[in-house]
Every structure is written in structure tokens, then in C-alpha cells.
């Protein structure tokens, strides 16, 4: 769905931040349980790293699809014509921006796992 060139909808717009939310919850819940139950922090960090990689890949794909929807800069914003095509380019542009933000936010979220080694 994300790579279909003719679809830019509210769902594609919300997909990247949803991935951020899932990644955030995974990291937080995993760390909380690990610290409460005394699991090995090393392997938890590995899982978080894997989740981060997966999230980043997904968001990057979504961003690429969105970028395609913008029409590859054939046409610059604000895309405010009353046409279906302009609607799609506009949604694509917004999705692309949202994906970029989600990308950065996922990296932000994973940084504590890099820098904080244990549960103190």
C-alpha cells in the first residue's frame, strides 16, 4: 500500500508517526520490564537496536513512497489546485515531512539505549 504510486491518504500520512509510537512503546516497555525483572541489559539493547533499524527502514520506505507522490519536484508546493493530483502531491509532501520528523524522533528515542548502559 505504501509504495502504490497512486495512493496518498490519511493512512499513509499517519503510518510513519505510528511506527514511531510503536517503536517508542517497544523500547520503553522492554526496558521497564527488563529493569524490573533483572533481565540482561545487553540483550535488551540488542532488541532495541533491531527495532530501531526496522522502524527506520519502514519510515524510509514510507518517505520514499511519499516523495514519489509529490511528483519528484516536477511541481513545487503549495499544491493548492483543486485537483486530485494536487491533493495527492500535497498529501505526499506532508507525509514526506512527517516521515522525516518520525525518522529523527526514532533516532532520538533510541539514543538513551546507546548511552545509558544499565538500570540505575
Amino acid at each position, binding site marked *: 500500500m505504501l509504495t502504490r504510486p497512486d495512493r496518498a*491518504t*490519511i493512512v499513509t*500520512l*499517519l503510518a510513519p*508517526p*505510528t511506527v*514511531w*509510537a510503536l517503536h*517508542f512503546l517497544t*523500547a*520503553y516497555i522492554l*526496558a*521497564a*520490564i527488563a*529493569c*524490573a*525483572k533483572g533481565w540482561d541489559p545487553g540483550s535488551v539493547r540488542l532488541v532495541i537496536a533491531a527495532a530501531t533499524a526496522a522502524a527506520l527502514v519502514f519510515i524510509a520506505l514510507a518517505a520514499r513512497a511519499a516523495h514519489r507522490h509529490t511528483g519528484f519536484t516536477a511541481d513545487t*508546493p*503549495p*499544491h*493548492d489546485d*483543486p485537483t*486530485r493530483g*494536487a*491533493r495527492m502531491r*500535497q*498529501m505526499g*509532501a*506532508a507525509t514526506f*515531512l*512527517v516521515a522525516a*520528523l*518520525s525518522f*529523527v*524522533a526514532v533516532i*532520538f*528515542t533510541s*539514543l*538513551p*539505549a546507546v*548511552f*545509558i548502559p*544499565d*538500570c*540505575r
Partner: protein
Amino acid sequence: MSDDLSRDTLAEAQAARLRKVWATPRGWRYWSAVNNTEVGIWYIVTSFGFFLFAGVLALIVRAQLAVPQNDLVSPEFYNQAFTLHGTMMMFLFAVPIFEAVAILLLPQMLAARDLPFPRLSAFGFWCFLIGGSFVAGSIFFDAAPASGWFMYPSLATNKDLAGIGADIWLLGLSFIEVASIAAAVELIVGVLKCRPPGMRIHLMPLYCWYVLIVAGMILFAFPPLIAGDILFELQRMFDWPFFDPDRGGDPVLWQHLFWIFGHPEVYIIFLPSIALMAMIVPTFSQVPITGYGWIVLAAVGTGFLSFGLWAHHMYTTGLPALSLGFFSAASEAVAIPTGVQIFVFIATMATGRVIFSVPMLFAAGALAVFVFGGLTGVMVALAPFDWQAHDTHFVVAHLHYTLIGGMLLPLIAGLYYFFPFATKRMLSARLGTWAFWLIFTGFNITFLPMHFTGLRGMPRRVFTYPAGHGWDWLNLISTFGAYIMAIGVLVVVVDVVRALRHGPPAPRNPWNAGTLEWTVETTDENWGVRSVPQISSRYPLWDQPGVLDEMDRGQGYLPDAAAGKRETLITGVLDATPEQVQRLPANSFRPLAAAIFIGTCFIAATFEWWWLAAAGGIIGIGVILGWLWTGTARPPEAATMDAGRGLTLPLYASGPRSVGWWAMCITMVGDATAFISLIFGYFFYWTIHAEFPPPQATGPGLVWPAIAAATGLAAWAAVLAARHANRTGRVAMARLALMAGAGLTIASIAAGAAAILTTGLDPVVHVYDATVWVLVIWTALHLAAGVLMQLYCLARSLAGHMTPVHDIDIQNVTLYWHFAGVTLAVTMAVIGLFPLASG
């Protein structure tokens, strides 16, 4: 020429019919109105009244803090005053005013006749008025909540320390939260489905984007608080130990549930005001907003990220540093989309030629104040700094900079901007300027010094303080500033009251704005728009020269009310292609009656008058059923109607094409969020205990949960079968399936009851037992509602309102059952299977 004449008489006749259908009732029947033009105004006036009330409380608090060792008010009263101040500002002013303004503005902005569920708006308003007066009035009986607006256990759960005030807080506000969710549903469906033809999603005003995001946030933020309220009340009333460490509970669970709500709440408050700025700034710059896509990014981004911040209110509860790290990171990340919004406004102002006016003055002041509050926000988002500043007046200063800069000042800007829209009169520019400078300087004089008292260690929520800590004169200045600010607010009030009578009449579109709400007529017409336009621009009034005239002459869609019914246009989500003409319910006292009885239920429960509560609840449900029966899903007299401009549209649509289906789906998302919060509680206890369920616990076993699941899922299947049979014309079969479904559901409820009653689980003894009880009761209540719905459909079918073609009822009930079924399956798996997995 005679052609013209007959066209004119036709238009006149149409207008007369519309006027009659949309007329506001007179006399005592006025209070049966459900139209957004009335309900929106009531809502705004009420929440603004609560704001003034809460402001007076703040002035009392400030007076008490003016000098050290002051004994102006008693400590008991002080606690009630600041708790009620915070509570009312957040729950009775900031959120409701968003809903109020949106209910008033949205229909006109979308050139819709009204939002899709006018009675729901009215119901929400009455709930708000009743619940709000109850909470606010409690202070006159020395019974107001006194444990701070976040009501931390174990102080607030203790009946001796926190008397009835805590119950008033919990039940009164839960009641209002229900109203907020109702409004959120209404607003989401309104924005998605009620736009004028041609207003594709990328052409809709930015305000609509914000409404969509904020209403969506309410759906995910309020239910956790409702779940928390339920646990809290169960502890207070029946001594179930959710937050009691001695019996396996934990007060931190409350903090999680509260702040999962509480942090997004701050953005739920902030974004709608920014949305007002997004309408004001382009108008006074006389250019389209720069970077429409960027604003969508900012709204969506803030909406999401703000959910990842809740634990930054919990830095000092001893969570592991790693957990805190995630929240700190997310807190810093949210500065990005927030900053984007500010930059977009600045860029827009830079591209246009800014006309300085009162709304712009407030908007500019808001930006300045908010940016300052944001800077201290970045400071407290860093855990080590927060460990120092936590619960000092530094936090009070920070939160008021963001709330007043991010919410109150933009709102007053909106008041000056939209006053002519709502009242057809202008406010005074001179008084407005005075008000601005009084509020702006008063505000800074009040809250700037609090940064310093806070850094010098003055704790918040203290009733008084000793002299000689360097706090004295700073506090005196603060108090002085608060009264200057109050004078400023008073000037606004005076201006509004004066202008209602004596303000100069507003010309049409007085600010030369570009969006559709300014098509509002200068005479009192309640039809919203004379006819619905075809849209082809983000700023139709700027870019579509003939559009206003066309609308006024009845040349758009729906120029008539031939059937004598209220009607509005339903369009597609993405491209706003016309899909259906929706019949809207007319004025009715039913929403008011329903609110009174449901309110009675909540209020009586506060005093533990159980019989009255039960009576109120049952009658209330009866009234709601009557309201649904008479007001919704009525088969129309014809399949289609002429919508004008040569367009013929259906009058009835069911399933995903009906607005009711969307409303059900959205409500269920909120419901599922509350359920997930309860499940979260179960696993939270599992993480904090070495063994959960505890070794001595008995647990519900496997048999009863399995029976409950099997019968309940069979009931779900029966509902599906009923829908299918009805669709395919086998009506008798459908009725049978509904009956069978009701029987199976009741069996499932009984098995659930057996699971907790016969297996020795005692909710007072340990939190494990209590949690299982709560999950089962939650599920059983949903199944009970499911029975009611099955029987309702059966009755509708027997009465001939539900037929193979007209099947909205069963479609929506099936949708409900999808959620109820999943709730049931998850509950039974958790209580039945999880003990095996972890044991």
C-alpha cells in the same frame, strides 16, 4: 424578465422554507435547541464563566501568598482553592472551550448546515454544565477536592485526608470526560464527512486539520484517565487496593494513567489555540499561509510525539534512568514540530504586509510568551534540572507561560477576531489594546518572579511560607501582577458585555478574510448557509469571486428544504465528492433529559446513594434509547432527493458510508483505549511483583473463562449472521439470530460472573483479585450493552424501521460487537491463560 421574477419568487419561497425548518424555538422551548449556533454559544459562555470563577480562585491564592505567614484563608480552604483552580482551568475551561469554539465555527467554515450529530453536541453541553457546576459548586460547601489537580494517591485515596472532595473530582470529571469524547466524535466525523463539494482534504482550512488531530488525541488521552478514575473510585468506595502497596497495589500506576492523559492534555489545549492563530495570521497578513504542508506536519507530529512525554512528570518517582532517558529524548524531540508552527507564522507575517489589530496584538504577545515558556520547558525536560526544580514555583511559572502564551492569549485573539462572526457586532479596538497591555504586563509581573522564587526553593502548593528566604518581595510582586492581569481580563469582559448591546454592527466579513466562515450573514439566519457552494480554493472568498453571491442567491447545493426536514451534505473523506444528503434531527429536550438523569447517576454515586444512582442510570439509558429510536436511522420517504445543481443523492446509507458507522467506530477506538489501559494495569502489577499472580492467589481457573469466551464469541457470530440474513432478505432468520445472540450473551455474562464469584477471588484482599474483578466487570458491562443492542435491533426490525435495505442499526451494532468480542477474548485470555504462562 418574467423569468427573473419567477426565479426570484422561487428563491424567496425556498428561503422561507429553510428559515422555518431551521428556526430557533422561542420561550421555554428555546432550551430544546440543538443547532450549533445555539449550543456553541452556550458552551462558550459556560466555559468562559468557569474560567472567570477559576481566575477568582487564583486571585485568592495569590492574595494568601502575598506576604509571609499570612492567615487570610485557612489551609483547608487554600488547598481547595488551588486544586479547584487547576482542575477547573484544565477540565472546565481549556478543553471545553476548544469543543465549544469548534462546534460554533466548524459548520460555517465547512458551509455545512450543522455537524452530523446535533443532539450529541447538545447532550455534551448539558453534561458539561451539570458536571461542571457540581464540581465548581462544591467549594461553597467546603467539599471541594483538595489534593491538587493530579490527585496523587495515597493522600487522595485516604478517606480521612481527602473527604468527599476527591469523589466529586473523580465522578464529576469522569462525567465531563464522557462529554468531551462525545464532542470529539462529532468533530472528527464533521471534518471528515461534512465538507462542501470540492473541498478536498488539501484545501480544507488549517483549523480543520487541528480539530482532526486534537479530537483524535482526546480519543487516546482521555480513556486512560477514565480507566484510572474507575480504579481510584473502586479503591475509595470499596477499598479495592489498586494503589495500596500493603496489598500489592502501587501509587505509581495512578501516575502513569494520569500523565498518559495529562501530558497530551497540555497539547490538546495548546493546538486548538494555535489553530485560531493559523486563521488569524493569514487574514491580517492578507496572504495565504506559508507552508500548508509544514503545518500539517506540525499538527500531526506534535499530536503523536506528545504521547511519548508522560513520564517527564515522573522524573522523581524513582523510575530507572534508562526509562527516563526515552521520555527526555521524546520531550526534546517535540520541540521540533512546535518550533515549526512558530516559524510558519513568522514566515507568513514576513511575506505579507501585516495589519496590526487587536487580534494580531494578542497573537504576537502569545508567540513571545509561549516561546519563553518553551525555553523553560526544555530546561525541565532534562531530568537533572527537573530534580532540582520539581514541585517548586519554577514549575508553576513554566506551566503558566506555556498555558497562557499557548492557550489563553491566542484564545483572546480569537475572541476579538470571531466576535463579529458570533454576534454580528464589533468589539472596541481601544479597549482591546488596553486589555492586551494590562494582561500582558500583569502576566509577566506575576509569573516571571516565580522562576526566581522557585529557583530559591519555594515549593508549590504551600499554604504559607516563613520570612527571610528571599521569597518575600518576589511574592508580593507576583500578587500585584496578578491583580493587574485580572483588571485586564475585566476590561475584556466589560468590552464584551458592552458590545453585545452597543457595539457597532459588524459588516459582512469585516476583516476581509478568505475562508468560508465569513460568509456568515449579518442578519440572524440559522440555516448556516443559504446554499452550499462548490469549492476550488483554500481561500474561496479571495479566489472565487462569484461564490458568495451564488451561495446567497440559492444557486449552490441544498437551496431548499422541500421535505420540511433539516438536511446537510455528506461528502467523501479525501476528495469531498457528494455522497449523500443526511437528515439531521430537529430540536428536542431529550438530550437535556438524558444529561439530567445520567448526571443524577454520577452525582448520587458521589454520595453513595446507590438507589438514586441506579434509578438515574436506568432512566437515563431509557431516555437515550428513546432518543435513538425516534431520532436516528429513520427510513426516508424516498430513496433519493434533488440536491440542487442537477445532482441527485441518496437519503440513506448504511455501513461505512453512513456517518453513524464512523461515529461508532471512533467511539470504539476510545473505548478500546480505556480497556488497554486496564490491561496495562494488570501487566504493570506483573512487572513490579516478583510473582504475579501471587503464589497464594486462587485465580479464576480455566473452565469458567473458557465457557464465557465460547458463549460470548458465539453471540458475536450470531450478530454477524443476523446482519447477513437481514441483508439477504431473510428477516425472520435475522430476528432468530438476534434472539439467540442475546441468550448466548447472557450466558457469557453469567459464566464471567461465576469465574470471579465461585473461585474465591476477593477484591479487597489483594490487587491481583481486584484487577481480575475489574476486567471481568468491564467486559460484562460491554456484553450487557451488547444485549441491549441486539434487542434494540430486534425491536427495530419488528417495528419495521429496520429492513433489508435500511439496516444502519444492525450494521452499527455489528461494529460494536467486533470491539466487544475482542475485549471479551482478550480478557478471558489474560485472566485464564496468563497465570499458566507466568506461573
